[in-house]
């Protein structure tokens, strides 16, 4: 029972990680709290669902959805955030919230307020190890997350693009002075983060078999709490925080009687971490 709960917790945490990674990447590079990121997650789920209904193929629909969301992410960065960078940080933050609200409402107007079902049959085996059963969708979630984490690690630590990314997030002006095309780096960061958010949206849609306009609401604010816990711009920190929260949620719901909803837990955890360790789990000082 305990191991089963832990497995369920990790699968929820993996999805949090996919959403939160993009947010941590964007914060690392532009110092913006990109609330509209969860809007992209919602759009990703909708595009994935529509394409799936057209093509009947999970693979094609998710690849196209990721590509389209990457374009949308870059467009948001280019037309919403970029012109606002010279203002104090709360201006892009408010713009992000406005963008996020608008995306949710547009989805509601186009697709209707009711949840749509996402009927994908995953042709993967379910795994049974010592009484712990892992459903096909969870196998899919684990493998997608693992692939994306490996890809992200490889990209940032082994390629020249990763080097440019790290340089830009250290100091954009210095990076530019030493020949890094920071505009391109920023655009690619948004593209990657948005693609990750899109696949997270699709996986959540399949997992709960529903896609609805306000599905981004909780991830939007929970993922902010998660990047704070992880150390704001640290991608590994965000991933660890996400996995921990996923497990904490399932275990606390399973074993402890807490009179508060699980969504409030993330924020309580966040405030406790800020009190004890103001720079977050893996954050640097300053």
């Amino acid at each position, binding site marked *: 029972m305990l191991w089963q709960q832990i497995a369920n917790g990790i699968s929820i945490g993996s999805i949090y990680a996919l959403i939160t990674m993009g947010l941590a990447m964007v914060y690392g590079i532009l*110092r913006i*709290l990109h609330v509209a990121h969860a809007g992209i997650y919602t759009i990703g789920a909708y595009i994935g669902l529509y394409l799936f209904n057209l093509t009947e193929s999970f693979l094609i629909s998710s690849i196209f959805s990721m590509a389209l969301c990457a374009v949308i992410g870059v467009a948001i960065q280019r037309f919403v955030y970029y012109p606002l960078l010279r203002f104090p*940080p709360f*201006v892009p*933050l408010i713009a992000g*919230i406005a963008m996020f609200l608008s995306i949710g*409402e547009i989805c509601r107007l186009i697709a209707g307020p009711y949840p749509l079902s996402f009927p994908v049959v995953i042709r993967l085996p379910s795994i049974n190890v010592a009484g712990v059963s892992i459903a096909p969708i969870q196998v899919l979630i684990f493998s997608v997350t693992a692939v994306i984490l490996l890809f992200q690690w490889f990209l940032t630590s082994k390629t020249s693009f990763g080097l440019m990314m790290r340089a830009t997030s250290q100091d954009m002006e210095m990076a530019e002075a030493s020949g890094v095309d920071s505009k391109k780096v920023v655009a690619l960061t948004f593209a990657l983060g948005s693609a990750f958010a899109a696949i997270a949206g699709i996986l959540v849609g399949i997992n709960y078999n529903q896609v609805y306009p306000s599905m981004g609401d909780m991830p939007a604010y929970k993922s902010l709490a998660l990047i704070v816990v992880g150390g704001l711009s640290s991608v590994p920190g965000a991933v660890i925080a996400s996995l921990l929260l996923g497990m904490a949620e399932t275990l606390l719901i399973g074993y402890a009687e807490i009179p508060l909803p699980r*969504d409030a837990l993330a924020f309580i955890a966040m405030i406790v971490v800020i009190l004890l360790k103001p720079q977050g789990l893996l954050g640097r000082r300053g």
Partner: protein
Amino acid sequence: MGYLYTVLTTLMINSIAVLGLNIILGYAGQISLGHAAFMGIGAYASALLSTKAGFPFWFSFPLAVLISAVIGFLLGLPSLRVRDDFLAITTIGINFIVQAIFLYVPFFGAALGIGGIPKPRIGEFVFRGGYYSLIVLIVLLVGIILSFKFYRSWAGLASETIREDELAANVIGINPVRFKLMAFVLGSAYAGASGALYAHFMGFISSDDFSFPLSVTFLSMLVFGGVGTIKGSIIGAFFLGALPEILRPLAQYRLLFYGFLLLLMLRFCPGGLASLIRLRK
């Protein structure tokens, strides 16, 4: 006339909250995304004091303002010690946590909310309708004067310096945390006052009245009117507050409308409506 008083009172109550947000965001440059939570704290405090403890409005109202300020102090203290962006995120968290507490703890009425909140009275005379609007108007005027005084005071100047350049402020001996906290506490007190007025105005409150979208609405009002100015806060609160009343069919698209309005405003007119009015002169 009853309808007009209702709309006018609501707009004035919103204005008080937005004035408070202006002190936090406009003067001190700190973003609070949990302003509705402090409004809720004021509303619940005043409602509980007058229904459970039986205090008259004249006692429960100032006490509720004080309670909101104290909670603002306790919650602001940890988040103001760290970087700017933390405050935005912690205040979102505060909004969700406070709302969850109101919704789940039986002492706060849980899902049923709190009903039967009495109107203020002196002896046999009950302040209802236009008379209640008068009380709200007086609080609003006091709020405006206080906000003006704060802006012109040493603390207001210090807050402005911190907003412009925290490092420079530090160098000339201004303690940023102290003044940020002062602005945050004062702003929370405004929100508490508006919440308490709201509770006695409606007679019934529930946790839904103080959810996160309301915080975003206050922020929209402030940005729309013009961050950093008293007239901007009031113009924004009145304009965005009255718009759904004037354009009834818009109500369903309110959020989309707010979203686009905010984006356009930030992009093309960051000074808000107040700055347009100044330009025309």
